[in-house]
């Protein structure tokens, strides 16, 4: 085991500039992905504060009795995505509409006697479910007594799109890192092909030669993403006086980015080996 590690670090030392470059590329990738994650987080948070009306309104059928209505309210509250619910009676609904059209009173004249507005529950989502309203909507539709559901599809789609773009860019950058690490390891094996031949001649198995190279990929990946996160943190710390407090990523995200770096290194280390370390 000690031997394998010393072999790994010797490999890294002798991979020289290419080893350093691949660590730098992974560091930059980790930084960009982290910034994307921060932007996505930021938009989530902003939307939470900015939104004034509840995102989802569930309209009830006409003429439900009190028990049924209350029962529906309980059922909605029990859904995991729901943060809070507010019951809006037919009367409240009319009031609200009145407020909206306060300069055109005549439109709503006579509606007290025959109020066509349905009663409803206004539902506030938990922050982490913003952007995935669809699941909630289908859950709501399954509750008997709910007639129709309205929600701000636009906002939801916007958030989802941002997340998709983040994911997309993240994947592309991740792939780029895999390619770079692959390349770095191919170059290492190429530079050291004579040594690899010697190792085989004195009885080394393919695995014996591969493991240090695999570890090299993992170490490069972890090192790169770790350095990237540290740099990003440093930069944000320096910028803080100018832009005010910027929320850094929560620890779980940091860990995820670093581990992803290691994983990318592993993949990069595993991919190129087969062809290059034959007999």
């Amino acid at each position, binding site marked *: 085991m000690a*031997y394998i590690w010393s072999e790994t670090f*010797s490999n890294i030392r*002798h991979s020289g500039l290419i080893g350093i470059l691949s660590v730098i590329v992974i560091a930059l990738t980790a930084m960009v992905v982290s910034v994307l994650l921060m932007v996505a987080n930021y938009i989530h948070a902003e939307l939470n504060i900015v939104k004034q009306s509840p995102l989802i309104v569930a309209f009830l059928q006409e003429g439900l009795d009190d028990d049924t209505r209350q029962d529906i309210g309980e059922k909605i509250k029990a859904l995991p995505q729901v943060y809070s619910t507010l019951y809006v009676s037919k009367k409240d609904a009319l009031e609200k509409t009145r407020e909206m059209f306060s300069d055109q009173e005549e439109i709503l004249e006579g509606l007290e006697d025959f109020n066509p507005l349905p009663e409803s529950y206004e539902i506030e989502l938990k922050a982490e479910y913003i952007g995935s309203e669809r699941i909630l909507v289908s859950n709501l539709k399954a509750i008997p007594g709910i007639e129709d559901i309205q929600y701000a599809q636009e906002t939801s789609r916007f958030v989802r799109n941002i997340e998709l773009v983040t994911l997309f860019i993240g994947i592309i950058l991740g792939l780029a890192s895999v390619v770079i690490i692959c390349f770095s390891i191919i170059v290492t094996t190429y530079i050291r092909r004579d*040594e690899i031949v*010697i*190792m*085989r*001649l*004195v*009885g*080394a*198995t393919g695995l*014996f030669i591969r493991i240090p190279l695999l570890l090299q990929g993992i170490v490069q990946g972890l090192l790169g993403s770790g350095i990237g996160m540290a740099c990003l943190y440093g930069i944000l710390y320096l910028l803080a006086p100018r832009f005010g407090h910027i929320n850094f990523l929560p620890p779980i995200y940091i860990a995820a980015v670093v581990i992803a770096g290691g994983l990318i290194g592993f993949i990069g280390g595993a991919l190129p080996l087969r062809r290059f370390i*034959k*007999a």
Partner: protein
Amino acid sequence: MENLQENPMIQMFGVSMQYKRDVEVLHNINMDVEKGEFVFLVGPSGAGKSTVLKLLYRGLVPSSGSIVVAGYNLSKIRNSKLPHFRRRLGVVFQDFKLLPHKTVEQNVAFSMRVTGARRSQIKKNVERCLNWTGLKHRKNALPEDISGGEQQRTSIARAIVNDPTLILADEPTGNLDPRLSLEIMHLFERLNTRGTTVLVATHDINLVEQMEKRVIRIEKGKILEE
């Protein structure tokens, strides 16, 4: 196992070798070396001595013919078995083939490391072999920092560290003075009396005559009378 004992250590049957098309460097070689023998393979430069040794450790595959070494049929051996086969051999390469980023000691230890031997065992064997080859004081040097003769002795130490069943030595004394050459030959002889089969390719006729062992002559890719 009993059966294996009776088979020769090395069997070459009808072996021909071409590096390039139409240029045959070995012609229909037949050669047997019994278990426990000490044999010299001699011949002028370019005769094909190194080619024979390379075929024997399967650094090369013959164009035709069959080779059996230490019970392994080399034309049928699977890639996955190759490391196990090579661990039974101790090869001294004409060009040494030392690992450039490892010290003398690490180079010698390497051929034991690949077998997964225990650390204490490796340490013991390496120290012993470095003593035998007179390299103790150079054990922490890198190959580029030692003389040709010292590199050659490192290669020899690496070949014998694993207690091989067969030593294949290609010009193992090419860079050594006569006294040191003889010392190495006596070292091989000592290992030979303990059961190791030894095949040494050389053109050092003096040395061969002093040792009084079986001699196989090769010239222009053909085996001459013994």
